[in-house]
């Protein structure tokens, strides 16, 4: 791993995003729009938005980041730039970390926007601190990025990568506690949800909403999410092949 190379990739990805207004709008505005839509849907059933609003702050950013990053390495493979980079002193982890770093920066902006709108415009009630909700939302965005990069290293074509979204993300959305609290799931499903990253992303948000700080339980969930992020990037780097058939 070479920091010079990692940062070069991150700076380049950001430069490309700066030109791509539609993608940036999608990444930053869409989660806030979707949360607002949910607020409106539950306008006449008070209390519901307070219950689902928090988990949505975990779910929407991670899905959107997943979709955008899952085609990232495939785009570079089909354009030939990945071949060129692999003949240069570019570590596979440098490549993925560069992308992760660039999208982590986007995740920070995304979290600030969506958390501010949820708390101050839509009056989402939480017991914990706003900044803690923000930190957790950033982690969840980065989780979606890392899972997307892993899927992208795993898929052989962009067509396959797009199919990863329903395969990888939808089961997690169903089981993460957004629709049915995890402790009310049948035992087997609860066991499955225990090994899915999004479950911990939602647990962390729910923890902050309940007023549990990072030192009282929520920190553990956040650390598990961080562990999944690092594991996804590590596995992605191991899956990405320099030599291809």
């Amino acid at each position: 791993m070479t920091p010079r190379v990692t940062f070069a990739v991150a700076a380049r990805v950001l430069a490309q995003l700066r030109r791509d207004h539609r993608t940036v709008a999608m990444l930053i505005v869409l989660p806030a729009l979707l949360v607002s839509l949910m607020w409106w849907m539950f306008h006449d059933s008070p209390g519901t938005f307070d219950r689902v609003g928090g988990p949505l702050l975990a779910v929407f950013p991670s899905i959107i980041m997943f979709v955008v990053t899952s085609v990232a390495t495939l785009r570079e493979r089909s354009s030939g730039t990945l071949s060129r980079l692999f003949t240069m002193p570019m570590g596979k982890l440098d490549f993925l970390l560069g992308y992760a770093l660039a999208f982590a920066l986007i995740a920070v902006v995304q979290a600030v926007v969506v958390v501010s709108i949820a708390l101050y415009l839509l009056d989402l009630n939480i017991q914990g601190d706003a900044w803690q909700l923000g930190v957790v939302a950033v982690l969840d965005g980065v989780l979606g990025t890392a899972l997307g990069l892993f899927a992208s290293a795993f898929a052989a074509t962009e067509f396959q990568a797009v199919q990863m979204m329903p395969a990888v993300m939808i089961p997690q959305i169903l089981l993460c506690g957004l629709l049915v609290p995890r402790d009310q799931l049948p035992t087997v499903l609860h066991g499955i949800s225990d090994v899915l990253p999004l479950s911990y992303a939602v647990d962390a948000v729910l923890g902050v909403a309940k007023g549990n700080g990072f030192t009282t339980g929520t920190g553990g969930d956040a650390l598990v999410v961080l562990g999944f992020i690092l594991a996804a990037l590590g596995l992605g780097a191991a899956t990405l092949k320099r030599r291809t058939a």
Partner: protein
Amino acid sequence: MMKNAVSCRDVVVVRGDREVLHGVGFDLRAGSVTGLLGPSGCGKTTLIRAMVGLQAHVTGDVSVLGLPAGAPKLRGRIGYVTQEPSVYGDLTVTENMRFFAAVLGVPSSDVERVIEAVDLTSHANARVDRLSGGQRSRASLAAALLGSPELLVLDEPTVGLDPVLRRDLWELFHRLADAGATLLVSSHVMDEASRCDRLLLLRDGDLLADDTPQGLLASAGTAEIEQAFLTLIDRKAGAR
């Protein structure tokens, strides 16, 4: 100084269930320009990818700059131009070069030099996807020149370029070779053969000839490279 920049022995490459190269062997003399000629689908790109360490399922010996192909220490010492222009379309020429220069760890002063070398200075600040096909492939070539690599492997770098530009690029290739670099240039256009110091003729995964252009014409008894290629194919068919 090392005599051969590249040395291949009994190189066999299998892709899927098909053997694409059937035991190819040759040397590239340091400081020379070698043409890798052959029809589309003959295995040129596969051979090139084996040399730069990107091809899976290679057996035999591929030695590059004294190291086995694909060795981590070779990264950055080889300039590789893929057939498709491998630069970022949504960045300008200069932004592309700055990025690759940062990855290679070469000073950013090199950026201006390589853009000038491929005659793109007037388009340095244009987005690559707004350039013509020929300009795009020159941008791709420029990236391979960063850091003045010892070995340049160029996969059809002159396709679709106008004759003046092609002549200029071949002059550039020879200037680079005179400065000590070794070049392998693939092409399916036979009329580029005369511009090379040496030729490798590849057909259906076998090396038909490894000679100078003059030597090839003499041994085939023809006046043109294309005719020599046909003669060699006929001879080989007759020998079977």
